[in-house]
Each structure stands twice: as structure tokens, then as C-alpha cells.
């Protein structure tokens, strides 16, 4: 008998195909595990409604369950809605090391116009950076530039 903790540990190691240094546990995409009769149900939640990585993540979780010889399925839940607040501190550290500025924890919600927040360059550490575009290479990122080292970098935007 595989324990729930062991299942969570194993499927939590599935990597995000877009940002392979992060696991779905780091991201907070993995929501939990429960039992329905003899079946194990692993719940995951998408970061964005249209996130194209979800199909692959679901498939990888299923493969992991098979490798554990666990009879189970994967369920996608929408509520509560994913937030960058669920990203682990270890995940944020890994992101910085990978060259992506982690979410600042100040979520951009509410009124129609939001503030641009200053970020530290993940490459040289300078706070002198500017936003090029609020939309980056994937839904979850925005595009920034460091005015000190002149390098462009991605930012995992708060949501």
C-alpha cells in the first residue's frame, strides 16, 4: 500500500514543461490526493485558464501513478483559483537561479489600472530594471530589461 504522502511526494516531482526547474509542487499546481473507493484521485489546478502545459502535466502525473502501481486518475479543479502566493519559497529561489524574477507577492488585482512594480534583475541583482511588456513568452510571465547589465529577463508575474 502506497501512502498518500508517498503519492504526493512522487507526483509532486513532475516538472513544469515550460519552466523545467520548477515542479508542480513548487508551483502549487498540485492540490492534493483523495480516495474514491479503490481509486486514488490526484487534483491539479491550472495556473491560467489557457495554460497549454496542463495536458502534459496531467499525462506525466498519470505515468507517475502507474509507476507506483497505483490505480488512479487526475482531476482538474478551478476553485479556489490558483495564485502565485502558492508558489513555495524553494520554488522562488530556483526561479531566480534559473534567470526568472519570481513573483513579488504583491498581487495585481482590483481596479482597472495597476502599478508597475520594480523588480531586481535575477542575473546581476540590480534594482534598476524596466518592464518591456506585461505579456512574455508564456501566459504566466512578463518581459523585463535590466538597465545595469542590459540583459532582458522574464518575470513570473503575480496573479
Amino acid at each position, binding site marked *: 500500500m502506497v501512502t498518500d504522502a508517498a503519492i504526493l511526494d512522487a507526483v509532486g516531482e513532475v516538472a513544469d514543461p515550460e519552466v523545467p526547474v520548477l515542479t508542480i509542487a513548487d508551483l502549487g499546481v498540485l492540490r492534493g490526493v483523495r480516495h474514491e473507493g479503490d481509486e486514488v484521485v490526484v487534483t491539479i489546478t491550472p495556473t491560467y485558464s489557457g495554460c497549454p502545459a496542463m495536458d502534459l502535466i496531467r499525462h506525466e502525473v498519470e505515468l507517475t501513478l502507474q509507476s507506483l502501481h497505483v490505480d488512479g486518475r487526475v482531476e482538474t479543479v478551478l476553485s479556489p483559483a490558483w495564485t502565485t502566493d502558492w508558489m513555495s519559497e524553494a520554488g522562488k529561489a530556483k526561479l531566480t537561479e534559473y534567470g526568472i524574477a519570481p513573483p513579488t507577492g504583491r498581487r495585481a488585482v482590483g481596479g482597472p489600472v495597476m502599478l508597475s512594480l520594480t523588480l531586481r534583475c535575477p542575473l546581476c541583482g540590480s534594482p534598476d530594471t524596466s518592464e518591456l511588456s*506585461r*505579456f512574455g513568452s508564456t501566459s504566466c510571465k512578463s518581459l523585463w530589461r535590466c538597465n545595469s547589465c542590459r540583459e532582458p529577463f522574464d518575470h513570473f508575474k503575480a496573479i
Partner: protein
Amino acid sequence: MTDLFDYTLRLGDDALIAAQRMAEWIAAAPQLEEDVALGNIGLDQLGQARTLLQYAGSMDGRTEDDLAYFREEREFRNLQLCELPNGDFAHAMARLLYFATYQHLLYDELRTGTDETLAGVAGKAVKEVAYHVDHATQWVIRLGDGTEESHRRMQAGLDALWPYTAEMFESDELVRRLPVAVDPAGLRDEWERRVLAVIDESTCSRPESSYQHKGGRSGRHTEHMGYLLAELQHVARSHPGATW
């Protein structure tokens, strides 16, 4: 068909058709960052559409693909605003300002509603749409308060689409009867307040129109809808059942 099916279809069709128009901008936007931004916005809308159409389909045994690819024009329930051709970039930003501000208010109310799935979709989407509103706001202000030419085009875009905005707030039997539905008539004042504040800041003048186009909610569409659907549906209809 049930009221909930019809209502979910309205929400899903708005998102689907808006996403299709947004996708047309990819590789055609005025700058690379904008190709990426509009592609991302379209992807958010498509994600919302997929979940909503899956939900609608679950009520009568159809899939999201059945609903997207194998319905006729008259069966689509989207706003005419969503199906109009893209026009120039200022035109696209005017539409995004009008539509995303509406979606933001609608989803914000829907996320506290009693239908678990609709509330779940809305709770996610409202955060995504906040970024869409912000993007449109920045561009409308930048173009309106920019050069003489950019101002002229921004004003033209705002004016051309204004007659299609009243349809968003049209109340009918369905929304009054269905407890989980948001009656959009109640969103109008706040929508106008937000949109007009942006238009004022952009130095453009407030659009006016005595005529208002309506009909999308009952399946009456503009002459552009058929062409849009031809592009959206022709691969799925030419090769029914194909997988890859």
C-alpha cells in the same frame, strides 16, 4: 435546452470568438511584443472558452469541439462586438477596452455566484482579464494622447465600435429567470464610468451614437461572422474525427 446551457453558451461563445479575432493578430501586430501580448490574451480567452464549452456540452452530451466546430452561425450566441473584423491596431485596443472591462465586471460578480463551475471559471478569469483591461487602457491612453495620426485612429476605433457596446448590457428573460446568471444591465453604469475615465484621459472625445446594433444573443450576426466561422471550422469539418 436548459437555461443554464443557453447562458453558459453566451459566455463561452463570447470568449471563443474574441479569442479567434485575437489570434489573427499573431505575426501581424505592429511590434513583436504585441504579437506575444495579443497571443497571450487570446490564449486566456480560449482557455475560458474551452472550460465554458466543456461545461455547456456536459449538459447535453456534446464535447467542446462539437460546440466550437459543428454549430451553424445562427446557433452562436456571442456579442456582435466580438466578431467584427480587427481593423487597425487602435481599433483592436478599443474593442479590448470595451470587452475586457465588461468581462471583468461580469466575472467579478459571477465568481461569488451559486453555480460552482461558473464561479470557478470566473474566479480564475477575473484575474486574467484584469491584465487585459490594463493592457488596453495603456494603449488607448498612449495612442489617444500621442501623435495627431494616432489620436485620429484611436478616436476612429472608439467611435466605430461604440454602437456595438449596448448589446453587452441587454437584459432579457433568460438572465432574469436564471438565478445563477448575472443581469448585465446592472453592470452598465460602472462599465461606463471606467471606460469613459480611460477615454477622457486619452484626450479622445466620448463617442456618441443614437443607433445600437443588437442580435448576437439570439443568433443574429453581422455579415462577418460566416467568414470567421469558415476559418475557425473548416479543418474540423473537412476532416471529421481526425486526431493527431
